[in-house]
């Protein structure tokens, strides 16, 4: 799960990124509106956290730029401005949720997960695929009712597949949503992670669709 964090206060951005990474998110930081707009238009993100008061380009402008370019990624506005006018304007610009500073990081994480889940079209907070269940609120996987221990990269790959269960997820797409923008990526690394996940998952299968990508499925082939 890859997050774009657009926040001009570098200390706050760093702290938030640390917390989010600890919750298995891949985090890219943009320190001003211009960079944020550019990243949001060119990179693939599952969700974005957007401050409103940004240098170079206002947060609402960034959001409108994304929306008018057809970017549908869910956006959580995280701002110091707590007036209802700003909130209403934020939602009109295309925001999906709104939080004001200061905030509990758990609240941010919960809202991010909910936004990603809803964007993937899941109404229920629990996603089930055969024996595998994914609690989208807590971000926990269970297999046959027992918690599944996963590394950060494994979690990102599996959550991405789980959110689009029974659908083919392209390899390039998977790569984009697992690694941060500045990460050194080995082209085989996704293969390696998939192999490790297959060992942990047992009956639930991650199918390789030749030439396309991967599919998480409960079907017994």
């Amino acid at each position, binding site marked *: 799960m890859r997050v774009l964090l657009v926040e001009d*206060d570098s*200390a*706050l951005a760093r*702290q*938030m990124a*640390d*917390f989010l990474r600890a919750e298995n998110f891949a985090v890219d930081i943009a320190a001003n509106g211009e960079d944020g707009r550019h990243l949001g238009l060119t990179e693939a993100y599952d969700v974005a956290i957007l401050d409103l*008061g940004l240098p170079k380009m206002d947060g609402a402008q960034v959001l409108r730029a994304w929306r008018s370019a057809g970017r549908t990624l869910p956006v959580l506005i995280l*701002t*110091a*401005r*707590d*007036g*209802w*006018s*700003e*909130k*209403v304007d*934020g*939602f*009109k610009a295309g*925001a*999906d*949720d*709104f939080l*004001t*500073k*200061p*905030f*509990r*990081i758990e609240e941010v994480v919960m809202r991010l997960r*909910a936004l990603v889940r*809803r964007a993937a079209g899941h109404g229920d907070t629990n996603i089930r695929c055969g024996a595998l269940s994914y609690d989208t609120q807590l971000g926990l996987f269970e297999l046959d009712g027992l918690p599944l221990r996963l590394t950060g990269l494994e979690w990102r790959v599996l959550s991405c597949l789980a959110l689009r269960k029974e659908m083919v997820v392209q390899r390039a797409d998977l790569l984009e949503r697992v690694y941060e923008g500045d990460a050194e990526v080995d082209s085989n690394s996704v293969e390696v992670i998939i192999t490790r996940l297959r060992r942990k998952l047992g009956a639930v299968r991650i199918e390789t669709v030749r030439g396309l990508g991967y599919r998480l499925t409960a079907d017994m082939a």
Partner: protein
Amino acid sequence: MSWLTASLRGRLLLAATILIAAALIGTAAVTYVILDHFMHRQIDQQLDSEILALRSTLVTTAAGMEEGRQVDGPPFDRPGWYWQINSGGSVLRSRSLSGHTLDIPAGPPVLVPPPPPPNERASRPLPDLFEGGPPRPGDGPGPDGQSLHFRTKTFALGGQPITITATAPQDAFVRPLRDAMTPVLLALLITAAALVAAMMFQVQLGLKPLQVLRRAVADIRAGRAERLPGGQPLEIAPLTDELNKLIADNAHGLARSRRHVANLAHGLKTPLANLSLALQRHGDSPELQALVGVMDRRIRHHLARARVAALDGPARAQTRLGTRVSDVVAAMMQIHAERGIACEVVAEPDAAVRCEPQDVDEMLGNLVDNAFKWAASQVRISVQCKDASTVIRIEDDGPGLTTEAIANVIRPGQRLDEHAPGYGFGLPIARELAELYGGHLVLERAALGGLSASLTLPRAT
């Protein structure tokens, strides 16, 4: 009188009336002098003719003088119209004198006038008939004490000087003059009235742009317009320009104050968010987090108050409620998307209030958010226009509030629920804003079962 000098119209009318009156009084005076002069000439000619007639019929005998005519023709048969001939000791008089003798006033010495130019000679034949100049004029009392106008001429007849005098009553001047002046004065009065009326019309016409301007300023105050219209008369255009600049400065000042507040919020809250995150990282002590919460609430409270205070003076703006309500509801549906709450909005389409749009958002946002937060499944919003106010009622089917709780909520700074941020904070802010605009907030039990918040705001027309 104070109105006359205090109002522009009064001053213009006063000045115009004085000038018109002066001009017309001048006209009347000149007319009077001309008429008077004309009358005098007429009557002098009449008297002089009589003197000539007497002179020509006068016969001197050894016994004395004898006047040839037996009867005095009019007007010398009437009182005031007299003649008298003095020669040495003997006196002849008109019958109208009834035996009285006239005291002939001693006039100024008669100077012999230079001979008139030849071309005037034909038109003025009478004075030529007198040798040594026309008769001497004079004024004096008559036998009955009435005022008389005299013409006296001394001739040499048979080596003896005889003095012939003819008189006319002053009344003979005054009455025709009065008769002539009456219609003249009447005409002048009518002219004066017409001029004053024309002046009033002109003043009205000239001051009309000021009335238009007053209405335009009222429109701005009521929020119906943002600036004064252009195309004003040359004399007023600089004034409207200045007013427009003042209005722009005011709006700018309000926007700047609000921006300062927003910047202050940003400046205080970002470090506070940093602090909160740092605390969460290092063990997350509940006491320290509670302190962060207190700081946050203090900042929010004072920022909200500062935002309210930035609005100084009467509200110029008018805000249509239709889109505001639907925008706020759309935002709530997003914020509370998971709750699946149904929201019904019944609003009069043209409802508008005299409030800044930001403050309308703030009041609506706080009240509707509160309703969504506590509702079990349903929120109902209605907007109703009354005579001078617009009532926005927001109801939910949640647990509602007890009477004591309502009293607490309305107290500023009071917080009912520490766990649902905004509750008990938003309601006092909404109330404070409403009161700032001359409205009020009433909380009661809703028909749906929960809380009903009725926000009354001044209606924009």
